[in-house]
């Protein structure tokens, strides 16, 4: 188990290093235009351009530039936005992080609970109307752009039906910290959580159902039946436990997509000032330092979360621990 931990951590660091190099290459080494003018933003004066060249060492060899970039990003934290006149980027990112974390972790909870519920229910009522309806709903969930769904949710809850008892509790768009007002925090995030989770509930509900149905054909299920166990115990303790393993593996992969894409779009649509919204604003303004920072920090977070998931996977599946 310990060797697994060490190996996985080493792998995680390797990947993080690789990602940082890739980000560096994309932003600094893509042929086509001068990185300085890209970073400095539109209408940059020659002095600013010169300052950028100096700060990032653009006249020095690539490895030095890489080192300088990493320093600005992680050590000195003094990366500044040129579009927003000297605004320190890293503190901005750190300040926006709790919003994104609240969104992402809450959505993950909904995602896991929702998809396990749907998967188990669909597998238990296999081939019935309930099963078909659930799978159809899941399929539709997978096919919707999350930002579009968010806009429709807003349309319904903020505008069209806002005055009905159904949605009058929905607060106006924007974020309130948990520390300020926990109940308001919850109410603000409830709809974004569900919107973000629908895509993944649909996907994972289907995958889990397929895994469960397959697991129920296995020999050990026949044994469990021969032991005189009830069908529900067999489904929940034997089939589900074994199927959760595959579930957890996939979870790690999609968590990255959730953070990188889904969360960003959801923050934009629901007016939550998280890292995603920050990135979005930077995209509209072509504020490259901000984008570099958010991409880097978000990617690292995802890689770290994946490593955590992998280690959980090892606890769930004893066969992996010895590997």
């Amino acid at each position, binding site marked *: 188990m310990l060797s697994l931990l060490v190996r996985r951590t080493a792998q995680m660091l390797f990947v993080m290093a690789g990602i940082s190099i890739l980000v560096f290459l994309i932003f600094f080494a893509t042929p086509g235009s001068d990185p300085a003018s890209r970073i400095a933003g539109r209408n940059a004066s020659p002095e600013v351009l010169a300052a950028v060249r100096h700060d990032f060492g653009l006249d020095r060899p690539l490895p030095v530039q890489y080192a300088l970039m990493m320093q600005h990003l992680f050590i000195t934290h003094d990366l500044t936005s040129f579009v927003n006149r000297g605004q320190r980027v890293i503190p901005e990112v750190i300040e926006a992080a709790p919003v994104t974390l609240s969104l992402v972790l809450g959505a993950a909870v909904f995602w896991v609970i929702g998809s396990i519920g749907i998967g188990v229910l669909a597998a238990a009522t296999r081939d019935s109307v309930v099963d078909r309806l659930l799978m159809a709903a899941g399929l539709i969930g997978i096919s919707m752009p999350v930002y579009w769904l968010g806009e429709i949710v807003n349309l319904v809850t903020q505008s069209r039906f806002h005055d009905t008892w159904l949605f009058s509790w929905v607060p106006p768009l924007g974020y309130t910290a948990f520390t300020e007002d926990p109940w308001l925090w919850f109410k603000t995030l409830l709809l974004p959580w569900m919107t973000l989770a629908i895509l993944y509930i649909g996907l994972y509900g289907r995958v889990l159902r397929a895994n469960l149905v397959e697991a129920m054909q296995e020999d050990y299920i026949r044994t469990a039946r021969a*032991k005189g166990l009830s069908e529900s115990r067999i489904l929940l303790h034997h089939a589900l436990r074994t199927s959760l393993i595959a579930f957890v593996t996939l979870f790690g992969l999609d968590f990255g997509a959730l953070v990188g894409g889904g969360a960003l779009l959801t923050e934009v649509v629901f007016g939550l000032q998280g890292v995603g919204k920050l990135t979005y604003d930077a995209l509209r303004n072509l504020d490259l330092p901000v984008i570099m920072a958010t991409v880097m920090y978000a990617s690292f977070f995802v890689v770290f979360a994946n490593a955590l998931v992998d280690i959980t996977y090892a606890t769930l599946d004893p066969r992996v621990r010895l590997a």
Partner: protein
Amino acid sequence: MEGALLDVRDLRVSFRTERGLLRAVDTISFRVDTHEIVGVVGESGSGKTVSLMSVMGLITDPNAVIEGSILYKGRELVGLSQRQLRSVRGSEIAMIFQDPMTALTPVYTIGWQIEEQIRAHLDLSRTQARRRAIELLGEVGIADPASAVDRFPHELSGGMRQRAFIAMALSCKPSLLIADEPTTALDVTVQAQILELLGKLRRDFGSSIIIVTHDLGVVAEIADRVMVMYAGRIVERVSKRDIFTRPWHPYTWGLHDSIPPLQGKKPHRLPSIPGSPPSLTSLPPGCAFSPRCRYRFDRCAERPALEGEEGHAAACHLSLEERARLYASRRREAP
């Protein structure tokens, strides 16, 4: 005749398929008494596994049709609800399967799985169940049961896994144990140990055992009586000794001949039964074995009944004298 432990009468198991009705088990009858070990011999597709799975109602295919009567201790099992069957499974009748690697849930320790079985039928606390599990593992010959109980199935060797499986099956002291090819997936040396264990169980636990196998050697080792099945039908019912000294069915002769002889002249080529097992959706109208039978004649177009004497019966139209003559001439033939 007093009531048997298991009395199967006219059992028929069919499956509705796209290609028609598949008769996996075609009207078989047999009984198992207490303290008996009955062997069921046949090729794959002979219906041996299906008939025994239907004893416990383990056939979950919605296209399956089960008819006939299965009396266990006088109680009719055919037609029971799943809930009623659950009280029988594991506690009265237990089953062990061919490959213990795939037949045990990979994510739980064997101790956990044995405890689960115990607590499903007996009212014991966790600690009591665990103690019982360790006891059982010791009784089936696993060394250091106290640490084995916390191992996962993949951490044990094949032989130990099968022993653990047997321990689990016996945990509620079933009166009948059905063993479906318990040694097929194991090495030959381990096979012998497992068979010895099963024999010991009959002595110590008093359970009857039905052992399914395609290997006559296994039968020779521990069975008291043997049932030979072909294409879903019983073709011969015989005692262990008679199956080797005076078998009464051409199929059994064929099974015999394919065992390499220990003494005598080394055969040029190991004889095998010509042809291949029939497709169960397109069986011939009479004797199922006739297409492959050297001795078939026109009466074989009619299905033969299982006839004979007490303790020995076969389904063949050839007269007993004829069969004795043919068998003797086979023994004299150089292979």
